[in-house]
């Protein structure tokens, strides 16, 4: 089956610096990728998504990069702010039954 993993369980970043959160996947048939942010006591919140026919997509202060050759996904957050402190999850689908396969999450800590 598919597996989704994260390189670092915790990432500490200085306020104002850029953050990069990475995610690896194993199935080359994966076709839809999504990043979520989860704050303490809240449900996951959609950040940005990307389809397999793209390799880059930008939102407000966030960029998702997809490298299908090495099966790697990253989330870049520009000018990290205290409000970015959360756990970030990557997830993907590989067929049309709507199910998401989730990574374990990376906790982003912002240092003042």
């Amino acid at each position: 089956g598919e597996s989704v993993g994260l390189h670092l369980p915790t990432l500490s970043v200085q306020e104002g610096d850029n953050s990069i959160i990475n995610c690896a996947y194993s199935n080359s048939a994966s076709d839809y990728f999504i990043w979520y942010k989860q704050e303490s006591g809240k449900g996951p919140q959609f950040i940005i998504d990307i389809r397999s026919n793209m390799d880059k997509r930008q939102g407000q202060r966030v960029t998702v990069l997809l490298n299908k050759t090495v099966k790697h996904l990253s989330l870049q957050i520009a000018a990290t702010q205290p409000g970015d402190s959360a756990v970030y999850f990557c997830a993907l689908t590989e067929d049309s039954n709507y199910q998401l396969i989730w990574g374990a999450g990376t906790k982003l800590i912002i240092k003042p």
Partner: protein
Amino acid sequence: IAGITQAPTSQILAAGRRMTLRCTQDMRHNAMYWYRQDLGLGLRLIHYSNTAGTTGKGEVPDGYSVSRANTDDFPLTLASAVPSQTSVYFCASSDGWGQPQHFGDGTRLSIL
């Protein structure tokens, strides 16, 4: 504000009791999902429904049942609660494949 409503927000339950977690969405999404999230871990899919009248099993369905009588409601039932079902339960919905899932704020369930 449109979204997912879950009830109750938290519950302490004696082992062996029956419990139904409620989930309602007002976005008219076709697909709905139930996840559990254990401390420090990612989300695991319990059951899902691609459309009203249909349901399917996720990664960890044992001990849980669901129904989807209409588009808006997707209750999750624990027929006879056990301590290993202590978790945070999230309900989500999406408009279909390749679309983000939107989450409620969860039900924190403790089985004693």
